């Protein structure tokens, strides 16, 4: 805080006004509108935003001086929106003035850990420097720690991370993300991380109805629509896909839709013999979804069948 601002410490604070002014409201509204479901996550973010807003007001009145710890951990199954929420968090923290730039740097183990002795430290520092003034998002953070290999360089990256997380708290916010069970084990073996992270946010799986609306939104973004049959087929698809292996929530849906678009293009190409209108070009029908192998028992059954044929 510069001398000028110090001279005129405000006597009262209008939280509603600073809520409007800081643009936090817009971020939270966007969060509500663009993300389906995730009620507990939204709740936690709202609480965090409230805390930060109050903390900011307290600092303006000279009641608090320490920067609060903002490092977070996101746990949840694949495809539950962790990266998307991290982007929003970066925006939120930027608007509240807790990070100066508000950009998101997404990294995995490969970006932090080196190949040989002496390679890890510069690599990790390079990434940390890039993330300064913004948010560093470490996807699948538990890979950093490999207990089975005691000479693994991951430990070195962890030590540098912890040091910067502690010493440069004003400069960057670290978000660790990964599957719940593996992250728990990661925190158990690295107690330093657990204590340095203030906010543990869990991402629940999406329900079937939520995935259906996600599918429709994804299609709408690309100017496609389901017809009646296509919609019903998608509902069934979601129910069946969920119990099959490698189910990744919204990501599975996105992949399914990509394949459906491929099949639709193929169908149009093979069956059409006249000019096509915009509706035909942008409608996903039942046949496009039903052709998926998910309806035939999924990947495993498919593979087994191919083997018997061969």
């Amino acid at each position, binding site marked *: 805080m510069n001398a000028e601002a110090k001279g005129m410490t405000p006597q009262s604070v209008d939280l509603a006004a600073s809520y409007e002014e800081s643009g936090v409201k817009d971020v939270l509204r966007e969060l509500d509108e663009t993300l389906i479901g995730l009620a507990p996550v939204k709740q936690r973010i709202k609480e965090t935003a409230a805390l930060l807003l109050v903390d900011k007001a307290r600092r303006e009145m000279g009641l608090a001086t320490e920067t609060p710890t903002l490092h977070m951990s996101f746990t949840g199954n694949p495809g539950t929106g962790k990266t998307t929420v991290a982007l929003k968090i970066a925006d939120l923290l930027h608007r509240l003035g807790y990070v*100066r*730039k508000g950009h998101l740097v997404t990294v995995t183990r490969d970006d932090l850990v080196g190949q040989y002795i002496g390679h890890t430290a510069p690599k990790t520092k390079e990434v940390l*420097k*890039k993330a300064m*003034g*913004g948010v560093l998002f470490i996807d699948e953070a538990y890979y950093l720690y490999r207990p089975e290999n005691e000479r693994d360089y991951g430990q070195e990256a962890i030590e540098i991370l912890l040091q910067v997380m502690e010493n440069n708290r*004003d*400069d960057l916010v670290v978000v660790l993300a990964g599957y719940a069970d593996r992250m728990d084990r990661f925190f158990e073996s690295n107690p330093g991380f657990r204590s340095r992270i203030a906010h543990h946010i869990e991402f629940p799986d999406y329900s079937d109805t939520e995935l259906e609306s996600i599918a429709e939104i994804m299609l709408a973004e690309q100017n496609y629509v389901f017809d009646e049959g296509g919609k019903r087929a998608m509902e069934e698809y979601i129910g069946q896909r969920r119990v099959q292996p490698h189910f990744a929530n919204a990501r599975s849906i996105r992949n399914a839709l990509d394949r459906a678009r491929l099949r639709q293009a193929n169908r149009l190409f093979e069956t059409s013999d006249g000019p096509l209108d915009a509706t035909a070009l942008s409608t996903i029908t039942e046949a496009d979804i039903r052709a998926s192998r998910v309806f035939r028992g999924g990947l495993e059954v498919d593979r087994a069948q191919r083997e018997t044929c061969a």
Partner: protein
Amino acid sequence: MRLRQGQFSFLPDLTDDDIRTQAQYAIDNGWAVSVEYTDDPHPRNSYWEMWGHPMFDNPDAAAVVFEVNECRKEHGSKYIRVLAFDASAGWESIRMSFIVNRPAEEPGFRVVRQEGEGRKIRYTIESYAMREPEGARYA
């Protein structure tokens, strides 16, 4: 004798906050900021040692302050400067340069007179620090 080279050299030493503000100005202009150090303060010595690579893609100046402090840990008794390089066509040159760290003792320069042909005198300067071998200058 205090070394006067580059920007701000007639001002008191820059604080970390000052360095951040200046570096942020350079970054916002799209210039690549880098940190260099030397123990040879001669004004014509343009080749200082590089401390890491120029930071081409760091959006925030905190990284520059971080590197300056890392450099101070290793070379705290030498001169350290921050440079901003403008890569845009037509410039391709240094836009900013300022010293952010200097030795505790700066012995200054002496004038060297060389007698040339026809009683001609050539003048040059030499830093007193340069009498010591590399690494032994400035304690």
